[in-house]
């Protein structure tokens, strides 16, 4: 596709009335790719209040923003989102359509690819353009190794793990394209009954700069209190290993690992987590990893930048106190 001028389209996800940072990371990368080869970079935002995000999007270099605005987008549902994205794909005719990888994206990516007969590379850690398609690196086998994969086709869909690219502002003035959208109840194949255990005021792990993650070593309320205190002084999100979400101690949406969320914050503090491969698959790309564990042979120490061998109940209180001092 380097041979002709084409469009790279980026999906901008909204959460709690804000643009997701991971979407802007993808947009920043797409802008850079587009500039290299003389392509244009455009964006699409699907939300109840989509037009209010144009300003935030054009700051990152999108030359055109497709707006799909409808009350139906208040909560994630796959049928309306898919319909909106099909419509935008057909009018933008992008050579690449890039997404931040989230549960909402994962819900529709395959369906959109099937609908548009497009090639698709999910959950990549990096991607580049090549003649006639896209080349990407994908962590596979529980993220133990990287697969170099290429996709060929007129349109290639790509979803990118959060934290894969840095933000790069590139102010421009975007053309705004309002997309007509309406949906009958009869088209709505599924019904969303309710949202339970929405994490409310907790910090979105995909967006968090710092994460404090609790594992099996956090045995009781005293331990959970220490986790919360540490998270509070660092303004960090709280995550958990599968052991603790399964035990019902932490909300399932906080699970980090191959099955749960894949995160890559600036700072990841693993507390009482041994470091099973399924957990490591979800956090190994964090910039700085701190591990606190009383077992000196715990595998988490093999990937930790700073390993503290010790009982978390003895380590955390002075650790929290010292960070408080630094912060003041």
């Amino acid at each position, binding site marked *: 596709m380097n041979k002709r001028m084409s469009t790279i389209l980026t999906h901008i996800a909204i*959460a709690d009335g804000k643009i997701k940072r991971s979407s802007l990371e993808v947009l920043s990368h797409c802008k850079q790719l587009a500039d290299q080869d003389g392509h244009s970079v455009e964006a699409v935002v699907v939300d109840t209040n989509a037009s209010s995000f144009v300003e935030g999007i054009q700051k990152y270099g999108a030359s055109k923003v497709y707006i799909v605005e409808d009350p139906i987008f208040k909560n*994630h549902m796959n049928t309306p989102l*898919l319909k909106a994205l099909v419509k935008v794909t057909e009018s933008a005719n992008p050579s690449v359509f890039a997404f931040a990888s989230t*549960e909402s994206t*994962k*819900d*529709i*990516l*395959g*369906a959109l*690819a*099937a*609908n548009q007969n*497009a*090639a*698709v590379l*999910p*959950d990549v850690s990096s991607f580049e353009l090549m003649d006639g398609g896209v080349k990407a690196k*994908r*962590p*596979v*086998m529980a*993220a*133990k*190794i*990287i*697969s170099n994969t*290429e*996709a*060929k086709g007129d349109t290639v869909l790509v979803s990118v793990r959060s934290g894969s690219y840095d933000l790069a502002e590139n102010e421009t003035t975007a053309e705004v394209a309002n997309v007509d959208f309406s949906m009958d109840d009869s088209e709505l*194949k*599924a*019904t969303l*009954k309710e*949202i*339970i*255990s929405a994490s409310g005021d907790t910090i*979105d792990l995909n967006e968090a700069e710092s994460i404090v993650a609790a594992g099996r070593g956090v045995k009781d309320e005293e331990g959970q209190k220490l986790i919360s205190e540490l998270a509070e002084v660092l303004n960090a999100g709280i995550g958990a290993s*599968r052991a603790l979400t399964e035990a019902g101690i932490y909300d*399932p*949406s906080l*699970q980090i690992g191959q099955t749960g969320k894949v995160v890559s914050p600036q700072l990841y503090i693993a507390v009482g987590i041994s470091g099973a*491969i399924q957990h490591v698959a979800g956090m*190994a790309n964090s*910039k700085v990893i701190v591990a606190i564990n009383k077992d000196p042979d715990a595998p988490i120490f*093999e*990937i930790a*930048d*700073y*390993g503290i061998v010790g*009982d978390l109940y*003895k380590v*955390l*209180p*002075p*650790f929290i106190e*010292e*960070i408080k001092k*630094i*912060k003041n």
Partner: protein
Amino acid sequence: MKFYVCIKMVPDVNAPLQIKDGKLIQDADRQILNAYDASAVEEALVLKEKHGGEVEVVSIGTSKASETIRKALAMGADKATHIVTEGNGDYDSGSYARILARFFENKEYDVLSLGKQSQDTDAGLTGSMVAEMLNLPYATNAVGLEAEEGKLIVKRQGDTGQEMIELPTPCAVTCSNDMNEPRIPNLKGIMASKRKPMEQVELSSLGLNEDDLTASTTVLGYEEKPEREAGKKFEGEADEIAREVAQLLDTEANVI
């Protein structure tokens, strides 16, 4: 309710692996039932036990995949279809989805269930691809299922919370391994599995040839992950090392 559960034989990600000249080599050729698919089988069995019905498993793979299918039958599935392929190295999610969509085109069922992803590639595409090809209502990443007359109630793990979704049947759903602990087949189940029907279907009898299944994605090769070096390990008096690391996070790592 009639359940079809799509299952796949996958390499065991816990087995040691190495990369030679860009190729992936696993010392022990351990092939297992994909963990997410095992959860899908388990949940279908639970709903069948509660409401009655039938659970049929479907798998695409080489002749070796029959071992995996036998395991699902030993867990309690009633019957199986094995869509036999010569090799399966070059198929991508789109290829598998096209085979499944063709297979299910004229079938009658209430729920088409799949694991949410394969544990080797973690792509997670096939479920929603098949649903779209068959124009079925669907939900992905289910952590709980309930059946009602003409409906499947799915508890789905979304980005910030759990969503309760009501799907009219027939529908498709992809399952997380967080919804249950798949049962381990007992001796009685294993014995019974040998008498259960397993039908073999050739791609040609589905009217498909290799050209229809050409993948749009190709794995060029594998490489080691950029090695993450173990950093400094601090042992000793808890109070002392805790404060030391906190200081280093500020002055050295510059992250607080």
